[in-house]
């Protein structure tokens, strides 16, 4: 059974059909790419998958559980975490606190326990710190743990966003243009990071990307979106040499 199965997903904004009859099937442990020209509806698909928009038709199934029409919070709890095209960190919090917010729903104590500093507070906070530092060290961010997140260089902010998403312990990780604004060196490093995330965390990754070196470098399978519709899907090398795809990107 596929981890994520999307059937005939569609949404209209007024008269505009932003996504139409979009279907995708992602197996557990896959590195899957979603590509397409600007305005094809890739981010809209992400917003549909994470509950930012409610689909007008179609269904989304995650690990056998129907999650169509749920809100962002419920979908995150069901097991989908994401990063954003324009980085959205908690800028005034420290790096480690960003990750600890991600751990929020897995390490619990009540507000009262926090205010009155009951023993459970110290115990849980200690566990959270340990777990957060563990995650940060995977992304080589443990040295910056107590710096404010806004002070990190761009590439590291991207990594921190991925770390925060992973902290919610998802089944599926959605990355929205992770290499946007990165230089070739940073992109190469990011590719290694994404690969190691998949291997170390046994994670399934779906990513949107324009950077073809990253797409061809790490994605095993691809779907191509054009004008809100699925143009083709298949193995990366086959898709990228498909004349339809080249036409969609470069025109006639």
């Amino acid at each position, binding site marked *: 059974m596929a981890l994520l199965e999307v059937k005939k997903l569609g949404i209209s904004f007024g008269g505009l059909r932003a996504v139409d009859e979009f279907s995708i099937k992602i197996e557990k442990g896959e590195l899957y790419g979603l590509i397409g020209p600007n305005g094809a509806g890739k981010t809209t698909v992400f917003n549909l998958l994470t509950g*930012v928009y409610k689909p007008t038709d179609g269904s989304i199934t995650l690990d056998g559980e129907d999650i169509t029409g749920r809100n962002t*919070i419920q979908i995150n709890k069901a097991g989908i975490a994401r990063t*954003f095209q324009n980085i959205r960190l*908690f800028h*005034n919090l420290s790096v480690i606190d960003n990750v600890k917010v991600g751990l929020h*729903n897995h390490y619990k104590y009540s*507000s009262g326990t*926090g205010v009155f500093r009951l023993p459970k*507070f110290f115990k849980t906070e200690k566990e959270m710190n340990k777990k957060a530092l563990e995650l940060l060290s995977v992304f080589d961010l443990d040295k910056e743990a107590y710096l404010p997140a806004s002070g990190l260089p761009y590439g590291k902010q991207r990594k921190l966003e991925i770390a925060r998403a992973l902290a*919610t312990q998802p089944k599926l990780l959605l990355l929205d243009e992770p290499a946007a604004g990165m230089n070739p060196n940073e992109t190469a490093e990011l590719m290694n990071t994404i690969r190691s995330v998949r291997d170390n965390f046994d994670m399934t990754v779906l990513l949107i990307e324009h950077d073809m070196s990253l797409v061809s470098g790490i994605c095993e399978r691809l779907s191509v979106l054009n004008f809100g519709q699925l143009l083709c899907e298949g193995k990366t090398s086959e898709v990228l040499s498909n004349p339809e795809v080249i036409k969609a990107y470069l025109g006639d």
Partner: protein
Amino acid sequence: MKKKLNPQTRKSFITYGLLLIVFIAVEILLKTGSISSMLQGLLVPICVYSILAVSLNLTVGILGELSLGQAGFMCVGAYASAIFSNLVKDSITQPVLRFTLAIFIGGIVAAIFGILIGIPVLRLRGDYLAIVTLAFGEIIKNVFAALYIGYDSAGLHISLKSQGDLGLKPDGKMIINGALGIGGTPNDSTFEIAFVILFISVIIIYNFIHSRTGRAVMSIRDNRIAAESVGLNITKYKLITFALTAFLAGVAGVLYSHNFYSLQASKFDYNLSILVLVFVVLGGIGNIRGSIIAAAVLTLLPELLRSINNYRMLFYAVILIVMMICTSNETIRTFFIRNFQKLKGLIIKNKSGSETVKEAE
């Protein structure tokens, strides 16, 4: 083995230490009788305003929402507790027990109002909270100013018209007398009690901020969409914060109402809410220690300027503006910080030459 404190904990402990030092200093001055009776009368209000300021800072600085109803919550707490104290004045004669109960009643009633307002409003984004809390404060003030409550052998009588409308029997007693307010509330709040409550409030707020809940609240402030994407229930955390703010404002109201012999609703007007907001903004949004300092300084200032009676408010305004410029203008702030560090360097140098070298490194 020496345990290293993390910077947040250190910051809060410095505040606790400063508060204690100030308290001890004031106590010594009180014992030696070197504080004028005018200033003595201001000690409880300073604590009250400080509690109002730090609790508002929770909503404005930590949650990032603007609330203009602090006086309204204070009013609710003040009236609820004053009614309670007046009713049980004869049955509970132990002042500490009575006042403790009054504090909880005032705080909880205010928190309930906070939750009732918060449930519809905190779901929205934007300035709605400011608008609704502003209206709430005015409504509460006017309702209490028109409220008549009395009791006699037949029980409680409530009216919104006049004292005569209550139809009290000869043995009856008035509790709230419309615009004249409540009289005869036992004067249970002293500077010591007010200080202890301020201290506890500050501890509660620091602990709240540096806990799982506080982190969630600050992440919502920093980026709502991202906070939702990691599965945080936005409305719940906004509501908890707002209720805590209202609770503490209610407690401040209890202290206030038990400090004066009579209490009128007209004191809890719009200006008071704005004044508290001024404390928060001048002290630094999100800066708890700053809120207390601003509240204390700006409450003392009009009294200290009393000698230049005619120009008092002029100076007050000028000082306000200067403080505002100094805290918000980046250039002036760096100028102050740089000179402060120079000064610090000089002091250390005078103490011992070798330490300065270490400091510089």
